[in-house]
């Protein structure tokens, strides 16, 4: 009986710790995208180099829409080499498209000059209309669209090398299955 009071310690500590520990696996701001499995929003936007790109032009080929900004440090800075590597590995099969999010074209240009321009189109989303249609909460966010124009996946936060390989492989597998 006298030792029973020692039970008080684990009774308080263990459940509290477990409960708080459970919170780690998730990011409360990560919202599953309602777009997955649905047709991708269409767009017609000017790129930084002045050319125009529409969603229709990309039809028939999987594409990856990467929302980024020069002020998004370190997320977009960390992610940039991953995207360059993705272009090297998968560029033949998948079109990467950058969308400059809430940023000036000049600042975006400076960013690309500094960290390396992979040569894929960089769209200027003035007013953030495309970002709103995709439901972007903050850069970087990346959407994976298959060859038929259906959204297949969403990366919340920066892509890592491992995540990038998984995501691109899944996208290409979706194409192979058709």
């Amino acid at each position, binding site marked *: 009986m006298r030792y029973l009071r020692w039970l008080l310690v684990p009774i308080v500590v263990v459940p509290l710790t477990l409960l708080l520990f459970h919170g780690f696996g998730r990011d409360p701001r990560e919202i599953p995208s309602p777009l997955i499995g649905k047709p991708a929003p269409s767009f017609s936007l000017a790129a930084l180099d002045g050319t125009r790109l529409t969603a229709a032009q990309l039809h028939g080929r999987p594409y990856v829409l990467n929302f980024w900004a020069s002020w998004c440090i370190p997320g977009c*800075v960390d992610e940039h080499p991953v995207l360059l590597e993705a272009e090297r590995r998968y560029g033949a099969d998948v079109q990467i498209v950058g969308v400059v999010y809430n940023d000036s074209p000049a600042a975006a240009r400076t960013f690309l000059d500094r960290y390396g321009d992979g040569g894929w189109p960089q769209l200027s989303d003035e007013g953030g209309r495309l970002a709103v249609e995709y439901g972007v909460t903050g850069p970087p966010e990346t959407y994976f669209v298959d060859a038929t124009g259906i959204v297949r996946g969403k990366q919340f936060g920066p892509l890592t090398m491992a995540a990038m390989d998984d995501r691109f492989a899944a996208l290409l597998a979706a194409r192979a299955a058709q």
Partner: protein
Amino acid sequence: MLPTFGHIALVIGFAASLFAAWAFVIGGRSGDERALSSARRALYASFALAGLACGVMVFSLLTHDFSILYVARNNATTTPPFFSFISLWAALEGSVLFWTLLASGWAALVLHRYRSRHRLLMPWVGATLAAIDSFFFAVLVWPGNPFLRVTPVPAEGAGPNALLQNHPFMGLHPPLLYLGYTGLAVPFAFAVAALVTGRLDEGWLAVVRRWTMIPWIFLTLGITAGAWWSYEVLGWGGYWAWDPVENAALLPWLTATAFVHSSMVAERRGSLKAWTVSLVIATFTLTLVGTFLTRSGVVASVHSFTQSAIGPWFLGAIALALTAALSLLVWRLPQLTGTGRPTSLLSRESAFLLNNVLLCGLTFAVLFGTLLPLVVAATGGGTISVGAPWFNRVNVPIFGALLFLMGIGPALPWGRASWSSVRERFGVPVVAAVSAVVAAWALGMRGVGPLGTLGLAVFVGGIMLDELVRGARARSRYRGEDPATATWRLATRNRRRYGGYLVHFGVLVMAVAVAVSSGLASQTSATLRPGESVRLAGYVLTYDRLVVEPLAADPRVTEARAELTYGGSQEGRLATALRDYPNSTTAVATPSVRTALGEDLYVTLLAYDTATRTVTVRVFVNPLVVWIWVGGAIIGIGSTFAIWPERRRVPVEASEAERLPAREPAPSVEGA
């Protein structure tokens, strides 16, 4: 070069605080004075080193040194110096750095102040505080290193969080709150020391109450300043939303308040000791839980910092602190059983006891509501959020009951009261309360909440005033002093009691202001073309023009400003704006608040159209809001009055005694 210097300061600070903890334990076990004095010096050094690291960070922010990741993320070349400075605590790593400075500062202050008193307790107090400091230093050296570098160095930084660079209050609210949070480690350290040494006497209670009150004052002011900031900045017209971070600050405040009350029973009757110690432990644990919730990205909130690696560290610290303190408590439990006998239901003890039950009920309700989303997610129930209506519904009745107790508690004597004496004391206040409610009703005030709170407040205020007047009159009669002198001397001879009354008075002011402002506010929104007007509660607001231009202080920020003229019980011009920060996804509202003693006119811009020059504004008329801040200030003044050191009767001797180090160890003499 400089950032490396800052990092090295943190590494040495970690080593110094770890050494201090070890040397305090050695000194505590052996009583070796050399070990204790070197432990103290190591603790002072760790404070200085934290100061040095903060200095390096502030300098790097002011000079926009983007080679430091923290600076690149939270500063831009266009950031004004004031906001660069306060960016020290605007994001995760910096705020932990600032936190460490304050925590080690409190530790150094306490150890210095009691260097020749409480000789048995202090080594363990020092060891606990040094151990806590070393945890914070460790977080800064490993997972939360604020001096991480970026290569290549960016040409421009992201700039501070848009919400946090929008109002100077960010310079006030976090430091006050952090001073409160970090200070609550001191009573915890005293609790650990008392449990280790088994010296849980009246002297201990007096020190711990004082050192709970000091951070409590900062916490109170910090919470009030936070509510004020939220009101002035967020543009929704309110000041409290039961956001997880607000709750995180409120939880330790509630348990600390419960402690302040229960400790009086413990002191007076020798009972409730284990309970009182538990409250101290709970308070400190709740400060850690609150920090964990907001700094690990576990709950979503206006305040939550980015998800980070420091979460597991904090979790480990919570588990460790709680396990250690509870084990000590369980070990000492047989010695802590009270000597006091159960008393009459109608006594001040009972009132205090009930106060504790209610405060703990509030703590539990708030904790439950805050953690419920986590529980539901953990059990696979998906994502839920617990909203303000739930919190209001559960907590408002408890607050009402506490308010009522605030009146009857002081009216009851210790031990046992007779019904007739209670009736005698209640007569006048009850009449005053009823007349106040009737008068307010006649003047047009409606609603159960506002009228009920007003009635309760007048009742409680009446009892306190009655008590003060009786005391002063008696003193004036027996000593022949004039009423003003008699009142002042009465209050300064019983600082704790009358300071407490002043705190209660501040709470009453705040309660009435909260009830009236939330119950009787009016609001409307309107889309206006230039020259059009909107009317609300006797005010007429006429929209004049729309100006869209870069902000003078920071040209990267575009401000769209609607200029209006207003007439009514206040008159003048105002401008309310939406600001577009380059690093913010949404435009940040800059509400315009015109404050008067009776009511605030609060105008916020919701949307604008540059083509048609139309604007959509929301207008609030919030009665009595300013009295919430006044109430907070009264609480601050009252509690400072309560803990102000009593004037020594023989000042010369006392100061000499203090100057000379106590030659003989006098462990049996324990005094605050």
